């Protein structure tokens, strides 16, 4: 266990936690954009900047990547922190002036006007899409291309990637909604990655549902046991599961009655 002080409160947490997680445990919310509890901390947005005082030496650091250390003091809302967060949000807002979550957070941080030329980019470069694709899905179909202000998440060479299974996890974690999935009849399109995949037909109702590539990928990943369920659309799968559960209940009733 590690003892530290967060905003004046003595805290004891297990080793290996980040300052962000430790703060959360005692109910202190630190704003984040690129953090997701299912993913490795990345430290890209810098919105979770806090002040860390260690051996009388104060510095700013991203809370999501800073591991808790014995004896440190964390200030999540000092003037220094507020000033830094406010400017970071102003910079992000200048880049993405119409993105709602950025507008909201900027307002919360006290950004009243933007002193920089404004652009209307929709991607805040949090990297959640890239990381979910690599760490959770395991497909690594997208990554970052270019450097600096030109940086953007994309499929290699900006053409459809064979590795993209069209699962849509990227769109699900995207905080700005810039990654759009379009399901049109037998096709699934994710324009941002130039993905266009065939959708499978439900074995029961005949409706198009998931991309065949997603189903094949899940089978390959070991979902062989539930193979039959994978070939059903979500609605039919639910029905099939209910049927199965009913059977179980019936059997268990049998046991109790005899």
């Amino acid at each position, binding site marked *: 266990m590690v003892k530290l002080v967060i905003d004046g409160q003595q805290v004891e947490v297990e080793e290996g936690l980040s300052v962000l997680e430790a703060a959360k445990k005692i109910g202190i919310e630190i704003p984040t954009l690129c953090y997701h509890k299912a993913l490795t901390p990345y430290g890209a947005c810098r919105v979770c900047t806090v002040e860390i005082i260690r051996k009388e030496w104060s510095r700013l650091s991203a809370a999501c990547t800073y591991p808790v250390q014995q004896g440190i003091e964390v200030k999540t809302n000092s003037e220094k922190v507020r000033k830094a967060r406010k*400017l970071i949000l102003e*910079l992000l807002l200048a880049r993405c002036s119409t993105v709602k979550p950025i507008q909201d957070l900027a307002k919360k941080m006290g950004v009243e006007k933007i002193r920089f*030329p404004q652009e209307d980019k929709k991607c805040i*470069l949090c*990297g959640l899409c890239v990381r979910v694709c690599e760490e959770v899905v395991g497909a690594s179909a997208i990554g*970052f291309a270019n450097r600096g202000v030109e940086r953007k998440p994309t499929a290699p060479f900006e053409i459809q990637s064979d590795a993209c299974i069209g699962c849509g996890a990227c769109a699900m974690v995207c905080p700005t909604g810039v990654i759009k999935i379009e399901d049109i009849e037998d096709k699934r399109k994710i324009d941002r990655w130039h993905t266009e995949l065939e959708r499978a037909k439900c074995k029961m109702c005949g409706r198009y549902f998931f991309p065949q590539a997603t189903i094949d990928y899940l089978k390959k990943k070991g979902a062989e046991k539930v193979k039959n369920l994978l070939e059903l659309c979500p609605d039919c799968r639910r029905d099939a599961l209910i049927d199965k559960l009913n059977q179980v209940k019936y059997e268990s009733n049998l046991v109790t009655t005899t």
Partner: protein
Amino acid sequence: MGKIKTLKQLEDFQDSLVKKRDPNKLCITVCGGTGCRAYAWEELIRAFEAEIEKQGLKEKIDIRITGCHGFCERGPLVVTHPQRIFYQQVRASDVAEIISETLLNNKVVERLLYIDPVKNEKAIHEDEVNFYRKQQRLIFGNNGKIDPTDITDYIALGGYTGLGKVLTSMSPEQVIEEIIRSGLRGRGGGGFPTGRKWLYCRQAKGDTKYVICNADEGDPGAYMDRSLLEGNPHSVLEGMIIGAYAIGAGEGYVYVRNEYPLAVKHIKIAIEQAEGYGFLGENILDSGFSFSVKINRGGGAFVCGESTALMVSLEGRVGEPRAKHIHTVESGLWERPTNLNNVETWANVPLIIAKGAEWYSKIGTKESKGTKIFSLVGKINNTGLVEVPMGITLREIIYDIGGGIPGGKKFKAVQTGGPSGGCIPESMLDLPVDFEELTKVGSMMGSGGMIVMDEDTCMVDVAKYFLSFLQDESCGKCTSCREGIKQMLQILTRITQGKGKEGDIELLEELSEVVRDTSLCALGQTAPNPVLTTIRYFRNEYEAHIKDKKCPAKVCRDLITYTIDEEKCTGCMRCLKECPQQAIVGERKKPHRILQEKCIKCGICYESCRFDAVKVE
């Protein structure tokens, strides 16, 4: 020669090499550094070979292509032996004379000697050239003596005896202790104590450990690591092997940028030769210690010089930094304990082992020991690589070694530490150069770039230049670096265009502070340095741009106008003909006039006028 298995064998081999070499044998050494190779160098080498062949002197005269001598301004450099005559700017047409006069008749070819631009004195030997006089070339000195592609040249000068000593008589702990006592600090920029880094890596848990040589030098104008790898690759390699032994690493990598083809070639040859002699591979010098080195060629991203980005890139992924709260000595390459040092740091190691920590720690200042190689470039008479003891003043480097500013111009500032360094003004020229002193004035040691600027340099324009470099090279991962640098650059651009506003300086300062304090890696954390130091020391220039819409150095095109002084203009029509925009009108022998609406302010008229009639305001 097969593998060397014992220290005795190494010493015997060394003796035999020294005995075999006749110190009076006639020899021509030609600098083979990239700088010299840029001046009709191949032609020169061919001319030497042909002339020796023609005169039937093949047995009598050797030619040796050596590493970089550092005085790149005056290349190609040739030194004759045993006379030690130092010739500069040698052309193929000089070859016959050098051979017949100097080598065969011991006479000096006067016109090829270096003439001091200030004192107008000729220097016959290398050490008489002012450029070299105040240098202390401990790391760089052997460059000019050896053929970097021949390991025996290195061995003959005592090479690999440090390794022999370490493997036969020192424990890893003793080696680390020696490096700690020497006071050596990382030459890549951070200045972290090398011995302590090694100790932490040795203490880190894990059986597999790595050492890395960071040769991803990317600062504009800096090329000392390149010259070391090109000119004395075995010194770097020997340092790495000693370090690996001390740390307990079995594998090493040299991460070198692919834009350095000669460095890549020479380190590759060096590794092969070291393997051949048994300095690399299994059971080195029968000590039970095994170590191998691989080369990884970088793609040229500046950020890959940052240690965590370099390691990620080495793993085959996109080079971008990660937070370093868990140090790379604990979890680095492939999440194993990894010790990374810069080229120059590694090259210091054999020297410390050979001469001892005590000797080494006497050189330099209290906190910064040894020497440092700087690449002295910009508005300076003697451009080149200089190795000086820590603590030497900037004035000594710029005036005594560098020979001052060309064309009688006034010194304005020196930028140290690469693009993220700071600009130091004239009032601080007596600053002793070491890690702490440079940081105190807002700059840094960095990897050793030193760019000299004269009175014709606009400091706002300089800040803009470095920020534009950093904007291009930022990986873009973290918001503060990516967006912060971009906005700073836009403000600086506006100021140089005459669109600066009241409050711009304060906004630049505010951005600088946040970018410095909240960026993920050192690239962003130090990026504001050029802005902050130019504001600190040259605030009046910023104000002149913003308030008066004037560029005092007359650099920023939007803020200057070219006019012709009617009194001085003779009507020679020279500027009129040279102007690419046909913006100058007038008749022969009558004063010309510049049409402002057509003028693009390229300055060609100003440079072409022989009567000083073109004015810039």
